[in-house]
């Protein structure tokens, strides 16, 4: 058995837009390893190679730990993250962590927050709820909405890999149009996942007018960390929606997770933005807009769009969706960033991403 090649530690994450590819200033760098890092989810877990969720969770929780001086309690929904991090009797968690059920993580987090208030510890100890897209936008939606509207002091993070990966890649309400899953096979002329279905959890969160809503991807970890730290500066319910590619479910190269996450943003398919109290506040702009095909081709879940003459109609529909996102969110550098109430824009007759 050959030894794996020695892994070089990479200490720096460079930005794509902010400084034109130059090294960021010291204080803006993301430190991937170091003595001061919390490593809230530590090595030894069972995530697949190239798992976007494991990467996202590590950066989210470490940033939350940094923002609170290590005073974080996490409530986790059932799903990949829960399964790969806690195979009894082992645990990758170095923070207090509870897993209860699939659909109740936001309510469990609310309960922890209520207990901290009753114990007079709410000012020092903060609560993070987290789950995948199924646990959040489908089965956990009612508990999430309840946590939002009550104003509970919880940051809820959805790691969105766009299907039920833990059970074998079935469709969720976050599965994008035309994607092949085990329950949306592109058979008999079907496009994969139907067009015109699905929901945007960030826009739903914004409709609750909670203090802070943001989207992010694991391609820009510094941005992700900054958003977590910003989220922790608010009290009340906050929502962070992180796109996390899943090599297994998406049929992508595990070494390409970061690139694919970046392409999701750079094509306009996944808008990266922040909203305060229900209003769009900042948009992460696209430096050079790429055709959606560049994002779709490296993923086998979209292979039917390109095999045997392909489905140019579906590719065009996805391109139209990306173009609409660029318009609606003001994603291009030359475009005027659209300030204001996105839901108002929606009410004018446009469909969500």
């Amino acid at each position, binding site marked *: 058995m050959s030894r794996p090649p020695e892994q070089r530690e990479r200490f720096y994450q460079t930005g794509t837009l902010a400084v034109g590819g130059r090294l960021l200033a010291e204080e803006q760098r993301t430190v991937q390893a170091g003595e001061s890092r919390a490593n809230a989810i530590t090595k030894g877990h069972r995530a697949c190679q190239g798992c976007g969720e494991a990467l996202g969770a590590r950066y989210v929780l470490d940033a939350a730990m940094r923002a609170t001086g*290590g*005073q*974080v*309690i996490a*409530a*986790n929904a059932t799903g990949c993250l*829960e*399964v790969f991090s*806690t*195979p*009894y*009797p082992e*645990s990758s*968690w*170095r*923070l*207090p*962590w*509870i*897993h*209860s*059920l699939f*659909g*109740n993580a936001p*309510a*469990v*987090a*609310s*309960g*922890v*927050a*209520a*207990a*901290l*208030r*009753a*114990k*007079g510890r709410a000012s020092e*100890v903060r609560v993070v709820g987290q789950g995948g897209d199924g646990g959040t936008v489908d089965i956990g939606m*009612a*508990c999430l*909405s*309840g946590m939002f*509207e*009550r104003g509970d002091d919880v940051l809820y993070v959805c790691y969105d890999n766009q299907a039920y990966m833990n059970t074998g890649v079935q469709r969720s309400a976050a599965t994008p149009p035309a994607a092949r899953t085990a329950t949306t096979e592109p058979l008999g002329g079907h496009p994969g996942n139907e067009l015109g279905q699905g929901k945007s959890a960030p826009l739903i969160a914004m409709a609750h007018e909670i203090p802070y809503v943001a989207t992010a991807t694991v391609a820009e970890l510094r941005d992700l960390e900054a958003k977590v730290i910003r989220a922790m500066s608010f009290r009340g319910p906050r929502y962070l929606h992180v796109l996390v590619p899943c090599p297994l479910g998406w049929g992508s190269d595990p070494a390409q997770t970061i690139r694919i996450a970046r392409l999701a943003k750079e094509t306009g398919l996944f808008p990266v933005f922040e909203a305060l109290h229900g209003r769009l506040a900042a948009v992460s702009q696209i430096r050079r807009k790429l055709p959606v095909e560049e994002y779709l081709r490296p993923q086998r879940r979209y292979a039917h769009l390109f095999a045997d003459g392909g489905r140019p109609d579906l590719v065009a529909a996805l391109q139209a969706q990306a173009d609409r996102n660029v318009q609606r969110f003001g994603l291009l550098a030359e475009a005027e960033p659209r300030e204001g109430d996105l839901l108002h824009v929606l009410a004018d007759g446009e469909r969500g991403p």
Partner: protein
Amino acid sequence: MREQIEGSQAVAQAVARCRPEVICAYPITPQTHIVEALSRMVRAGALAPCEFVNVESELAAMSVAIGACAAGARAYTATASQGLLYMAEALFNASGLGLPIVMTVGNRAIGAPINIWNDQSDSMAMRDCGWVQLYAADNQEALDMHVQAFRVAEELSLPVMVCMDGFVLTHAVEPLEVPSQEQVDAFLPAFAPLQLLDPADPVTIGAMVGPEAFTEVRVLAHAKHMQALDAIPRIVGEYEQITGRPSGGLLDRYRCDDADTIVVALGSVLGTLEETIDELREQQGAAIGAVRLKTFRPFPRQELAQAIGDAERVIVLERAFAVGAGGIVTDNVRAALALAPDQAGGPDRARAPDRARAPDPARAPDPARVQDQGRPRLHTVIAGLGGRAITRRSLRGLLRRALAGDLEELYFLDLRAEVVERELERARKGVSGPHAESILRDLRMVMAGPV
């Protein structure tokens, strides 16, 4: 202090005196008066620093309780009926995690047909969810059981469900003794959780457990339930010392000593039942007694077998019904009676070192009679479903029927059998519509056209 007070208000006062830290609830009839009262107390600052969380569903209610309890707060909620079933998944979770939550169930029927009135289908459906289940016979007992429940729960790190019949108890006004804050404080120490989410000492709660340890986790829960069989009488004894009032426990015997017919029942029907027994004893010298079952989970097999002794006839009066099978409580009673005297505690219980209590030989069932002659004869009587009143007249008729040896193995009290027959006949002809509506029409409760 003696007060004229509604059952729900009494429960709210009992819970309040237990110094809860997080109360969460979703409204459902007939639980509402309890949580309304607690909400008012929290709003008025009377329970500070207690938090009251208005949640969006019963699943969320139990989930908030789970999170709160795991973070070290004394947590309470209340529900009924559909609500209990809506939180079913979280009930198993709370007990699997060993979180000592206390919950009131205002017993109510389960639909369809939708029905807001009392029976015990709800908590009986959840009998195996790992919670301790206590059933109150009256409001004094309901009140006392809540205070005891927190002790039992926190001592064993097990959740406890206090079941009280909806409306019959929750909405009934009676004079009750409400323990003082000093009495409750003397009885119930501050919650000292066995597991705690705390950044100072991070733990993982709710890990994934495979075949290598799952059985052991379940057996551990069972062992704790077996410990509860000892803990409950001890805790109830301590409660009596402080309040001067015997209340709650595993079970009580009512005029069983010379009884050859014993009725096993739980909940509010016991009052009516005991009056009927008194009447029949007086009028015709019938040797009837009752066993008041107060703890249904864990099931007190040994105590029940002893209480029944060598009675010839046991009638299990049930306010719930297992469709396709029969009596739920009956099956548990039958299992208890099938035990030989030397294993009346069950193999698991015999191992518990602190269980040295010997079975009372005078009351122990004669195994020969039990096994060879099929004694005692066991009858299931299903009564009071969906709020149908269980009257003294009905019970008198039932017991006379039993004494005459005419009682069927499975009997439905006050059943309108002809209505069922008529609907079955329609179904055979393929002309039946919605069952409940057809039956209501037959009973002339709905004036409508032909089916």
